């Protein structure tokens, strides 16, 4: 069965990529290395994993507002995620995605942290406000 969750477009665009799901909130400033795309937040469940090119799914952002600039830097360096899916986004992630043109959707009609899992191939159509599974491996 093909799961398709509908939600809210925050930043438009269409992207595909492998899912990477974080159960915890993410701070880009000090939490992600923009040079490598790797999560460096000590003790974070995804510490050591790369978010580059992924459909990065996490509850919400946290930390310093400078985090917005980190997303922008990653986009410029080619280490940014393909798209971001939040349960409910906030100002740091939303600002970062707007200035970097990274598609961002949130408030889906299902729980993206449960319905999607690492390694699934996902398609994010932020313009139309949905996320769907293309393949499960």
């Amino acid at each position: 069965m093909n799961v398709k969750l509908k939600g809210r477009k925050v930043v438009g665009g269409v992207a595909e990529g492998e899912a990477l799901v974080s159960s915890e909130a993410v701070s880009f400033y000090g939490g992600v290395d923009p040079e490598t795309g790797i999560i460096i937040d000590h003790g974070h469940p995804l510490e050591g994993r790369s978010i580059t090119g992924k459909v990065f799914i996490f509850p919400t952002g946290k930390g310093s507002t400078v985090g917005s600039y980190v997303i922008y830097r990653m986009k410029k360096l080619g280490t940014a995620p393909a798209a971001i899916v939040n349960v409910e986004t906030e100002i740091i992630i939303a600002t970062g995605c707007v200035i970097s043109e990274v598609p961002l959707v949130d408030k889906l009609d299902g729980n993206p942290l449960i319905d999607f899992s690492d390694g699934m191939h996902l398609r994010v159509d932020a313009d139309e406000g949905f996320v769907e599974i293309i393949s499960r491996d």
Partner: protein
Amino acid sequence: MYLTKEQEAMLSGGEGAAAAKMLELLVALGEVFGAERLVQVESAHISGVSYKNLGEAGLEWLTEQADMGARVRIRATLNPAGMDMDKWREMGVPEEFADGQRRVLETFRRMNVEPTCTCTPYLIGHKPDRGTQVAWAESSAVCYVNSVIGARTNRESGPTTLASAVTGLAALYGYRLEEKRRPGYIVNLDQTPETIMNYSAVGYIVGKRLGTIVPYIRGLGNPGTEALKALGASAATSGGIALWHGEGITPEADAMSDYLEGLEKLSIDREDIVEAKEALSKPLKDPIVVLGCPHATLNEIFEISQRVKGRKMEGKLWVFTSRGVYHEAEMAGYMKTIEEAGGRVYRDTCMVVAPLKEMGWSEVATNSFKAAHYMASMGLETRIDTIKGLLEG
């Protein structure tokens, strides 16, 4: 979100690519926070200036905006940089950092932002009228402008304040709305704070306990500018407080007393203050005393000069202030007294945004809970005391 014809035109590039991009950001955030429309703002205070926080990433974004033609259309001042723009070498700031910092300021200048480099724009003549909509970042200045002045802003960021400065607009949500400014908690002080340090402690405790709830504080006595800026700065540091009301003190407090019924109460006593102070205080051997967080007022510099007169601080006293206040203090002769005692006074920067580790610092003592909080998180050993205790103890 509803946009006027003029705003629609700006969004589709009628006023240049930069304004369009900036408005796109404000509209996207407005949608996220459920704003129904945009509102005109009259002043902006822009954060994200220190090269330490901004790095090449932030500088690249700012440069791109300036290249696209971003120019501010309302009064816009700038938060502190990572160094005194003239005396950085004396501060021990590395050359490479200084180069990055100069490029940041040059980029802001191209966009016609006033390079004030202070967290206290309200002390140097950038003081909006009560009730006006503004777009301010720098959490301590946000607290001051919302609470003490009674203008209206959310807790903005570097990109959003620049976007508001360039478009003259902000999305109408949060603390811009009358009903969102109402208190959510009552705070009772068992004892009136006697020192700036104690006002700073009260703010720190309130922020820690209440997070982002708007507090209505009773028992503050008769605080001056210094106490008001200290309280807000630490409340915004330990929590996310952007607005507070002080009974009999802040301009909206009277009107807010209609909404106190049924609110939960928090009381703060002397023990809470001692506990908060001890949590950020270690016995230190040879600390550098750092004052001016937020940037020192003329009164504070006067007090410092009186307390160090004739003493030998030998570079172990650093004071941070704005250029405006520095100039007044110089005219009044306070600067000479502090410098003769071996103290140093720097402008454009502070202990929170300067690269202290790279400058070789390890032990610091201050009267500000905000400064102590951030310096501790940078890995420095801290102690908190009053100005008197720090300089004469």
